């Protein structure tokens, strides 16, 4: 091994060099291309051109103009004769001069509207055709916003007779039969048919054609028309992403896509990403513009779409795709007028749920109760309790005269501090800005975006803060007829500041009790550990600076000789260096006496020494890809084929340094620490991947769809012999709605598609290098006053360790009725997961003594469905849509490597055996309420404490015996609930539009999961976490209590996990509601603004759940409340487009 390392050092360098030269060549090449493009793309409307021709048809002239300019011609060939031959000659003339020459004298008039030129017959050239008994019909055609629509073709159905609307949207058909039907058509709009029925004036509002059917969806290594999609793929587009102000992308997905299970565990800036899983599986592979990477922190304004590949459609990503794939595509430019968008929103975040802790009066009373139950001397006298109640605002307190006098004298000693209010503030600001521009010509298209986000937190110290600066530039250039390139560059600087203590320390260190004063006027003395822990000025800082830089070059070449064949090469480079600086400040906790204005030392704060750790990590990924693409249509047969080769190289370096014993906490730099005890360390890791993938699509007559993919994947994490894996998939679809029997008989069905799929994929981010043995440093001992480092084996090797295998079966149906007014999809899946790594320790004796290498032994299977149903319509001027989805999934263990329980009794099997059981189960005892009296305890036949119930007291939890031995033992634990991942998730999107107003709502929720309530410790008196809801504990006076009797450290009997604490939880959350108002265009059109919309938006405004005391998405099996509360955000925003 040693030898090998040496030998590799030199080649490493050489290899690196060859890569550098490769990049340099590419760069040079691109610069050259850019220069060429720049010269050829200076066309503008003012350009004069020189053209001439003899005896050519007008049609050909127009085609020539179209190919040389941005102008487009609209005409109805039934009305204008473009086959007339003309001769023309223009030198340095404008388009108008040309048109005058060729059209004027041929009976055609034209109208220029932007870059659209509308041709129509000259009105003077309408000799008296009005001979028949026909009346004239006229009217105005407008678009959905009411603006006149020129160029709309109006034809009498079944004839070639018709006209085109003029620039004001007006049309006149001078001689239309009274019983005829008019047909209005325009590109991109729905064709409308209206019977004349004797009317002479018919106004029409054209409606945008629903593009859904021709919509394109991103799939692995390409796109697919939505109509012909046969995998289970769901997609969310940019407009649905940016409408919720959020600091991260993952929290935008909840509720929008069927089959996405989302759980957000924290509301802390920078840590508020949701855990997203597809169909409840593990971490999905996330791909951003073709490269595996994290997408969470990308500015949502940069994202064009997010597609989720749930079934065999993910198989093209092979060994990583077992848990599904999330594809993020960023925006690109399109030719046309440049569009500049500016958006800004300013939000206020506040906590969705915040526990109310006890006040001083409640504190003193419950503390005494706990002490009494635990058999300890009481802490407070009756008078003191009264006094504390009094200062806590309890007006029912009555003092005796003597007490009153005493209280007046020592008033200042009685305080009631609301520590939550000391540490947290009611609201914190968040701001988001984004400026983007897109557009381009036929040759060059661009999308450029600049974003900034500033998110503060509800910590009163302002200690939590996330700032994010992001920019992106995606450029496409057509170099020659066959060659185009793309150059994408993006960067992000993320500054995340936290106080040194994390949220758990802050919660757990609230200075014990409300009768203590908060910090006094002298800020040098930190009072209250929570107060100190939440304040970076006191406890120190944790700062993270993430610089995300990525660039990619792609080259696309259409092979000129073979129609439909193209080749593409793409190189991606990305690096995300993370710099972390952890500064621990030593501090002490004091108590403050406002009467004497004195501070008394209590104890040391979270850190007793000042130290600084700096860590720097630089991961670098390089991916190169080669594509070969072929698309062709042979009559009714349509064929697409794709082959990809993908090569990934990854390397990461970490370096960290530490010093302690700082002379002062004022200088937060390494040099200021003592060199005694300083440490530094570093590591490096490497990874790579080679993959070949392909896809073949075949469609017959747009009815029968077939797709098959393969991937051949290799990873160095596994031994040479098992390194390569082959992952095939096959999908088939049948578009019933294209069949004549549907078309003719069920005309209201505009879309009906059946889909089935089968695919194999894997999960390989497991057990890297499990095939190698070896030794690494670990442990050691002090040998003669010096540390002798230890060396330990990595464990036994397993040469055959490989990825998990996932086989997914999926069947689905898509439908759209009444022109997609009602639409929906239903998917059902079954997945077999095998080769889950586990050790044989379950079946090997415990005396074997080694960490056996993990082997691909366990299996599991999952099943579920997703259903989506939407409806959209328009009632007068109100457009609205409702789109709901629901998904269910559940997993079951297949084979689990464990002891053989076949010989044991049923209770042991039930308790311990996993094979063949549902995965999501929660074990506990079944309670029967609380003991109300000693007599009840004496009569209780079940021994709960192994001590003849002598340790039990009234107010303790009563448990039912499950296995019938009249003793509470381990075997009485049985399934009493589900796990913490919801089995059922649902979402409902409602949106509506009326005139300039728009309103949208997103409801999201989940159920079939278990929560331990209320995320605190209601059985014990913990000064720092005694919340008001816990006051409902059992006392002889409060026998109808929710919680058992309280003790100083609680009573063991009441701590067992049981139905007493468990909630079969559900929640429904108004994730977002937004009301927008677009200012009437008239107001700002003059200043070049094309759209101006103001909105007010609220996130997490309302939560309905049977989990009352903590956020229903967080889970705490330990009963600790250590989470950063979820945030609800209310914001005002503005979008402006130019």
């Amino acid at each position: 091994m040693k030898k090998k390392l040496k030998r590799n050092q030199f080649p490493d360098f050489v290899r690196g060099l060859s890569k550098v030269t490769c990049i340099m060549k590419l760069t040079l090449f691109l610069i050259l291309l850019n220069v060429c493009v720049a010269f050829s793309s200076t066309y503008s409307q003012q350009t004069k051109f020189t053209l001439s021709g003899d005896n050519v048809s007008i049609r050909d002239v127009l085609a020539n103009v179209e190919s040389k300019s941005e102008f487009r011609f609209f005409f109805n060939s039934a009305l204008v004769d473009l086959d007339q031959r003309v001769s023309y000659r223009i030198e340095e003339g404008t388009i108008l001069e040309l048109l005058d020459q060729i059209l004027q004298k041929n009976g055609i008039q034209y109208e220029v509207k932007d870059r659209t030129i509308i041709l129509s017959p000259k009105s003077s050239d309408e000799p008296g055709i009005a001979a028949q008994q026909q009346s004239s019909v006229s009217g105005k055609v407008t678009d959905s916003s009411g603006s006149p629509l020129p160029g709309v073709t109006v034809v009498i159905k079944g004839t070639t007779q018709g006209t085109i609307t003029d620039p004001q949207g007006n049309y006149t058909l001078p001689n239309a039969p009274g019983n005829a039907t008019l047909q209005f058509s325009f590109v991109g709009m729905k064709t409308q048919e209206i019977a004349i029925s004797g009317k002479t004036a018919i106004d029409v509002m054209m409606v945008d054609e629903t593009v859904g059917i021709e919509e394109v969806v991103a799939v692995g290594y390409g796109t697919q028309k939505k109509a012909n999609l046969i995998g289970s793929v769901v997609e969310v587009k940019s407009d649905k992403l940016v409408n919720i102000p959020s600091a991260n992308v993952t929290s935008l997905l909840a509720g929008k896509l069927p089959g996405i299970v989302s759980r957000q565990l924290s509301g802390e800036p920078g840590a508020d990403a949701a855990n997203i899983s597809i169909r409840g599986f593990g971490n999905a592979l996330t791909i951003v513009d073709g490269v595996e990477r994290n997408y969470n922190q990308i500015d949502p304004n940069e994202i064009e779409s997010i597609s989720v590949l749930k079934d065999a459609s993910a198989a093209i990503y092979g060994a990583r795709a077992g848990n599904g794939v999330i594809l993020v595509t960023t925006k690109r430019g399109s030719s046309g007028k440049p569009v500049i968008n500016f958006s800004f929103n300013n939000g206020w975040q506040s906590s969705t749920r915040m526990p109310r802790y006890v006040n001083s009066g409640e504190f003193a009373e419950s503390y005494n109760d706990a002490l009494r139950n635990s058999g300890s001397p009481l802490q407070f006298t009756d008078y003191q309790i009264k006094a504390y109640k009094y200062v806590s605002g309890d007006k029912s307190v009555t003092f005796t005269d003597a007490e009153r006098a005493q209280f007046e004298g020592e008033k200042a000693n009685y305080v009631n501090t609301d520590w939550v209010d000391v540490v947290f503030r009611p609201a914190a600001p968040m701001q988001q800005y984004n400026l983007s521009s897109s557009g381009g010509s036929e040759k060059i298209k661009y999308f450029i975006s600049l974003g900034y986000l500033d998110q503060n937190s509800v910590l009163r110290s302002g200690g939590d803060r996330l700032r994010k600066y992001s920019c992106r530039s995606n450029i496409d250039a057509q170099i020659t007829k066959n060659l185009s390139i793309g150059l994408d560059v993006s960067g992000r600087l993320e500054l995340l500041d936290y106080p040194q203590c994390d949220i758990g320390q802050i919660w757990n260190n609230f200075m014990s009790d409300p009768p203590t004063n908060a910090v006094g006027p002298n800020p040098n003395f930190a009072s209250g550990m929570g107060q100190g822990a939440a304040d970076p000025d006191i406890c120190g800082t944790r700062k993270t600076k993430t610089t995300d830089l990525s660039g990619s070059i792609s080259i696309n070449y259409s092979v000129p000789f073979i129609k439909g064949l193209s080749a593409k090469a793409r190189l991606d480079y990305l690096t995300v260096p993370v710099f972390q600086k952890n500064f621990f400040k030593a501090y002490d906790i004091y108590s403050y006496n406002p009467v004497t204005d004195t501070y008394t030392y209590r104890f040391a704060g979270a850190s007793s020494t000042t130290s600084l750790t700096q860590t720097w990590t630089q991961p670098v990924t390089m991916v190169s890809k080669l594509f070969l693409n072929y698309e062709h249509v042979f009559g009714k047969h349509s064929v697409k084929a794709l082959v990809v080769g993908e090569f990934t190289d990854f390397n990461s370096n970490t370096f960290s340094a530490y010093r302690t014993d700082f002379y002062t906490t004022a200088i937060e730099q390494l040099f200021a620490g003592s060199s005694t005890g300083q440490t530094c360390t570093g590591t490096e890791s490497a990874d790579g991947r080679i993959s070949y993938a392909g896809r073949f699509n075949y469609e017959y007559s747009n009815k029968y769809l077939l797709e098959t993919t393969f991937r051949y994947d290799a990873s160095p994490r596994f031994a040479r012999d098992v390194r390569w894996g082959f992952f095939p998939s096959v999908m088939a679809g049948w578009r019933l709605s294209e069949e004549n029997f549907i078309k003719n008989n069920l005309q209201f069905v505009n879309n009906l598609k059946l889909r089935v799929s089968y695919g194999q994929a894997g999960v390989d981010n497991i057990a890297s290098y499990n095939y190698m043995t070896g030794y690494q440093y670990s442990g050691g001992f002090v040998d003669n006053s010096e540390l002798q480092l230890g060396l330990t084996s990595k464990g036994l090797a397993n040469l055959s360790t490989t990825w998990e295998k996932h086989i997914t079966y999926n069947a689905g149906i898509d439908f759209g009725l009444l022109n997609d007014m009602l639409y929906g999809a239903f998917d059902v899946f079954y997945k077999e997961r095998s080769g889950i790594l586990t050790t044989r320790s379950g079946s090997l004796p415990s005396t074997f003594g080694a960490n056996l290498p993990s082997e691909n032994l366990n299996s599991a299977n999952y099943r579920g469905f997703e259903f989506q149903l939407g409806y959209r319509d328009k009632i007068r001027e109100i457009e609205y849509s409702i789109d709901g989805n629901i998904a269910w999934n559940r997993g079951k263990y297949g084979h689990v490597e464990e002891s053989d329980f076949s010989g044991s009794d049923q209770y042991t099997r039930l308790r311990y055996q996993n094979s063949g059981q549902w995965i999501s189960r929660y074990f506990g005892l079944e309670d029967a309420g609380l003991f109300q009296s000693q007599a009840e305890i004496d009569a209780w036949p079940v021994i709960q404490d192994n001590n003849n119930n002598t340790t039990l007291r009234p107010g303790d939890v009563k448990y039912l015996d499950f296995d019938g031995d009249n003793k509470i033992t381990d075997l009485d634990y049985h399934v009493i609930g589900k796990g913490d991942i919801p089995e059922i998730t649902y979402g409902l999107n409602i949106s509506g539009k009326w005139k300039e107003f728009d309103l949208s709502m997103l409801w999201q929720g989940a159920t079939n999961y278990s929560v331990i309530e209320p995320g605190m410790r209601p059985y014990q008196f913990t000064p720092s976490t005694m919340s008001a809801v816990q006051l409902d504990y059992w006392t002889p006076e409060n026998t109808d209590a929710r919680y058992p009797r309280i003790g100083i450290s609680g009573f063991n009997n009441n701590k067992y996990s049981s139905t007493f604490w468990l909630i079969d939880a559900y929640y429904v959350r108004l994730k977002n509601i937004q009301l927008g108002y677009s200012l009437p265009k008239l107001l700002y059109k003059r200043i070049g603004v094309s759209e101006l919309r103001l909105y007010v938006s609220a996130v997490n405004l309302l939560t309905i759940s049977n989990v009352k005391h903590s956020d229903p998405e967080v889970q705490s099996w330990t009963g600790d409340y250590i989470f950063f509360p979820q945030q609800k955000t209310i914001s005002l925003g503005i979008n402006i487009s130019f």
Partner: protein
Amino acid sequence: MKTIKYLFILTLICFFVQSCEELLEKTPLDIISDDVVFNDVTLANSYLANCYGLIKGPSTFQPLSSDEILNDESLLSGEGSTPHTWTNEWNNNYLFGALNNTGGLKEYWGYDLVRKCNFFIESMAASTLDESVKKELSGQMRMIRAVTYFEMVKRYGGIPLITKAQSVTDPESELFAKRNKEQEIYDFIGSEVDAVLDDLPVGNVNRFTKYGALALKSRAMLYAGSIAKYGTVQLDGVVGIPSNLANAYFQASYDASKQIIPNADGGSGGATFSLYKEKIVPGDLDSYAKNYNALFVTEKNCESIFEVDYIKIIHGNVAGFGSIGAGTMIDPAVDFVNAYEMADGSSGVIDFTTAASDNVPSLFVNKDPRFRGSILVQGDLWNGKTIGCQMYIIKENGEKVGVDGEYYTGLNGFTILTKGAYRAWTGFMTKKMTHENGRDDGASPFGADDDVPCLYFRLGEIYLNCAEAAQELGNSSEALKYVNLIRERAGIFLLSSVDMAKVKQERRIELALGEAHRWWDLRRWRDAAKSIAEGGLNGFIKKAEVYYDFRDHKYHFNYANAEPYARVFKEANYYLPIAVWKINNNPNLVQNPGY
């Protein structure tokens, strides 16, 4: 155009430059390959170092101190305002007699370390290193393995004796091993010591030397002897040792002890070790107390045979019984306090229901100096701080108050915190294994960051092992000699005769608090199932909380049960249960009786 085409082709070639297989030739960059380790003395030593660090007990201090609260010495103190609950193992499984076949109490199934040892010993045999180096390294590893078996056998009785690094393909009969007899394990420990005695390094008390090995034998054989004498043979000898073997084991222990004891004291150990007496000023009881305290905080002192040291920077807060917050880790119980005799030979029992003083230390001033070297009381001075550990005060009007941080000034002008700054749940705190010059972090006088060594074997124990073995063998005069050598060093009157009770009493005092003997001793003597009054572990341990009474201006003691529930030690607990998951894995592991 042509140029562009060529450039394009060139670019494509560039992409291919990345050779395919190279991308997959990645290896982890932080591991050392197999073949190197056992042929390189530095690396082999590192492997050994890892195993030294894994020896049960000294690798972290906490398991040692959990012994103290299982026996009748003390209860666990706590930080803040509540007594600490020492995990569930203490609470559920032992104190309430709930220990059952799910195990959990003092579990130690050290077969991962056994395997490491076996693998090392096998690999050393094939190594290319010098024979002498191989022997020295293997010898130490065999001792680590022996001590690991000792830690297991004293918990469970007989266990499978596995002396090779097994492979998954080994025959099932070997893999699914049966439990060996308890006797076989003790014999293995003894014979291993004998086998490697001459191969071991010399002079380094951090490693197993010849004397470290002999000390292991001295202790292990004594255990085997007591079990043979006092225990019963069950499960065909899987637990228990035939009583006719008792004397042979006592003799083996006696012989091993004698090989360590210095010539001057009648042994054959030369002058390698001697009892630690550096701080003693003859006639000054305080100096004896200081000396006893210094013995446990002085690294590599003359009495140490095998010890584990700590380096503060690396190990962080490793301290004997140093501070946790405002107290020491364990608080001695009243029964244990009363077990210390007076230095002059009179009874040390104090009636705490009536005892009262305005100067509490004066009540204890003539006790065995080892008391003052081990235990702190109200009013003691330690590291420049006066220990104030009153739990509450009683005002002139009889009102009882005990609030953190609240002062009260009485009519006599005396100002006192109503609840002391330090926590002493029993009225006493531990001084043994805290460093007098420990770092004063401002909060606690107990030295939170001390790097107190752990003396795994020390000469003092060997004297007492020798005395006990001699007494069991009927050689009472030899026993008296070694007991008195210990008492002489302690600064307490010398005995004129000994019996087993006196030998046991001496062990209880000399090896108390943190040396992890008492619980195991009570088990091997089969005393543990008796009541606390009879020297066992069943019943209530007592506290004597201190409070200040303004009515007579004195400190008093609240003598009461220290815990709400009685402690329970059942006959079956002489052997801990084989946890059910181990039996599920291997039905050949028979369960111990009574579970």
